C-alpha cells in the first residue's frame, strides 16, 4: 500500500458484513500478531506519534508501556462502545474491517503481555457486533490469536463507554463510571492493570506493525501524524464516515462532502463534548491538534457537524445540553444538579421565559447567562468522570461563539429558526435514525 494513499484504515472496507479474513490478509499481508517483538512494537508506535482516537488523544505508546510494566498480567480492552450519538466512525470501522481492529487488539495483547482481551461494542450497533462475531469465529478456526477476545455488548448511554464504566461492566457491575483513583491502568478488570484503547487506535497499531512508523508519518502533520476517521454530518449533501489525513483543512473536508462553510451557521467539532466554531473560524482551521488548539478546540472523537444556515445555534445547543444532562449517570451531585440547572437556565433564555432579566436590571445574580457562566466554572472537574467537564465545555464554547444570539434570545425570546427540528442526532428526540450517516 502506497504511504501517501488514502484510505488506509478503510482500504478494502466491505459494507456487506465486513471483510473476511482471507480478503483482509490478501490486502494487508500475512503478518501474524504473535510473531511481532513487543519492544519493537511499542518503540515503533511511539515513533509513529500515535495518539488515542477515542477523544482524549493520549499517547498510545505510553499506555502500552505503563500497563505492560506491572507485576500482574494485564488485561486489554478494545473500546468500540461509541456513546457519542453524532459519531459513526467506530461502528463503521468494526462493521467493515473487523480484522484490522482484531489484529490491533492481538498486537496490544502481545505488546503488554496480557492474559485476556475484551472487545466492547455498543448494544445499539448490531452490524458491528455481527461482523465481529463472524470475524472472531474465522480467527479461532485459523488459530490466528494467542488469546481469544471476548465480545461484550455495552448498554447504550453517553457515559457507559467511559474507561472506568467499562471496567465496572467487565467486573460484573453496571456500566457507570466509578471513583478514580485507582485508574484502570493501575487496577482495572479483575484488579489487574488494564489497557483500554479505542478501536480506531488499535486499527492504526495494526498498520504500524506492518508498515512501520515512517509509513504512518508519511501523511498528516509532524505534530499530529497519520490519518483519522471523521464523521461528517449536518448541512452537507453527502454525510458519512471519511478517512482524512490529519492537517486537512476543515473547509476542504466539508466541500468534499458537498457543503459550504461560508453558507453555514457554524461547525460543532468533536461531538457533544466539543467546541463550536463560527464560519469564519471554521474556514481558518486545519484538522490537527495544533491548529485546533489555537481555537480552543480539538478533533475529539472526530465528529464534524455542520450547522445549516437556517438553524438556530441557541436552540441546537440547548437541546444538546438538555440531552447531556439526562445522560448523567446520576452519581455525583455537581453533575446531576449542575447540568440540570444549566439546561433549565438556557431553556428559559431560549424560550423567552427569562426575557427582560439581565442587562443591569435587578440583582446581578438574576442574569441567567451570568449564572450559567458561573456554574460552568464550578461544575468542571467535580464529577467522578469527565461528563460534567465535557458538557460545560460545550456550553462555554456556545456562549462564546454565539454570544450575540444568546443575548438576542434573552432580550427578544425565540427566533424564527427555534422551531426547526434538530440538525444533529439526539436519541431521546428520535434523531438517531434520521441522522444516521
Amino acid at each position, binding site marked *: 500500500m502506497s504511504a501517501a494513499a488514502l484510505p488506509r484504515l478503510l482500504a478494502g472496507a466491505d459494507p456487506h458484513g465486513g471483510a473476511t479474513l482471507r480478503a483482509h490478509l490478501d490486502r494487508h499481508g500475512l503478518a501474524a500478531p504473535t510473531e511481532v517483538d513487543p519492544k519493537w512494537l511499542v518503540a515503533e508506535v511511539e515513533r509513529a506519534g500515535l495518539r488515542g482516537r477515542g477523544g482524549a488523544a493520549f499517547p498510545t505508546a505510553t499506555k502500552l508501556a505503563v500497563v505492560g510494566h506491572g507485576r500482574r498480567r494485564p488485561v486489554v480492552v478494545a473500546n468500540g462502545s461509541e456513546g457519542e450519538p453524532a459519531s459513526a466512525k467506530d461502528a463503521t470501522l468494526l462493521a467493515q474491517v473487523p480484522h484490522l481492529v482484531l489484529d490491533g487488539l492481538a498486537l496490544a495483547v502481545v505488546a503488554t503481555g496480557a492474559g485476556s482481551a475484551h472487545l466492547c461494542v455498543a448494544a445499539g450497533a448490531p452490524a458491528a457486533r455481527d461482523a465481529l462475531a463472524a470475524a472472531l469465529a474465522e480467527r479461532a478456526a485459523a488459530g490466528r490469536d494467542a488469546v481469544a477476545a471476548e465480545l461484550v455488548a455495552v448498554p447504550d448511554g453517553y457515559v457507559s463507554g467511559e474507561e472506568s464504566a467499562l471496567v465496572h461492566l467487565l467486573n460484573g457491575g453496571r456500566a457507570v463510571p466509578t*471513583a478514580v483513583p485507582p485508574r484502570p491502568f493501575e487496577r482495572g478488570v479483575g484488579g489487574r492493570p488494564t489497557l483500554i484503547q479505542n478501536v480506531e487506535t488499535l486499527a492504526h497499531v495494526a498498520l504500524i506493525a506492518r508498515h512501520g512508523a515512517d509509513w504512518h508519518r508519511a501523511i498528516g502533520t509532524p505534530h499530529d501524524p497519520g490519518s483519522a476517521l471523521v464523521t461528517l454530518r449536518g448541512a452537507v449533501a453527502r454525510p458519512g464516515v471519511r478517512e482524512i489525513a490529519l492537517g486537512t483543512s476543515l473547509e476542504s473536508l466539508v466541500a468534499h462532502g458537498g457543503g459550504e462553510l461560508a453558507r453555514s451557521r457554524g461547525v460543532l467539532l468533536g461531538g457533544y463534548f466539543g467546541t463550536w466554531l463560527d464560519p469564519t473560524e471554521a474556514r481558518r482551521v486545519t484538522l490537527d491538534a495544533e491548529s485546533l488548539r489555537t481555537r480552543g478546540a480539538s478533533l475529539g472523537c472526530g465528529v464534524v457537524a455542520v450547522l445549516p444556515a437556517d438553524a438556530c445555534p441557541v436552540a441546537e445547543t440547548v437541546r444538546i445540553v438538555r440531552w447531556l444532562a439526562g445522560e448523567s449517570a446520576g452519581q*455525583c*451531585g*455537581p453533575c446531576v*444538579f*449542575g447540568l440540570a440547572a444549566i439546561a433549565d437556565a438556557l431553556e428559559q433564555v431560549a424560550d423567552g421565559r427569562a426575557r427582560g432579566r439581565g442587562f443591569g436590571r435587578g440583582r446581578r445574580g438574576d442574569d441567567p447567562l451570568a449564572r450559567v457562566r458561573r*456554574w460552568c466554572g*464550578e461544575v468542571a472537574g*467535580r464529577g*467522578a468522570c469527565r461528563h460534567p467537564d465535557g458538557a460545560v465545555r460545550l456550553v462555554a464554547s456556545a456562549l462564546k461563539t454565539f454570544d450575540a444570539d444568546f443575548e438576542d434570545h434573552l432580550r427578544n425570546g425565540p427566533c424564527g429558526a427555534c422551531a426547526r427540528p434538530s440538525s444533529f442526532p439526539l436519541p431521546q428526540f428520535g434523531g438517531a435514525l434520521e441522522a444516521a450517516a
Partner: protein
Amino acid sequence: MRSEPPRLRVDPIACTAHGLCAELLPERVRLDDWGYPIVDGAPLEPELVAHARRAAAACPTLALKLEAGAGARATTRSTR
C-alpha cells in the same frame, strides 16, 4: 526534609451534600448552589491540617479525604 502538607479531595460519588465539611473547615470548603462542597487541590496550611482531619472524620459518608502531598517522593529524590 519536611514533607508537603496533605490536600483535600472529595469523592463525588460518596458525597451526598450533608455540608458538615463547610461548617467545620470554612477556610477551605465552600458549598455550591446545591450544597455540594467545592475544594481546591492546593496543599493545606499546616495550622489547618488538624481541623481538616476532624472535618474528614466527621463526614457522614466519609467522602472528604486528605491525600498525602508530593512530599514523600521529594524526600526520596533529595536523599539519593
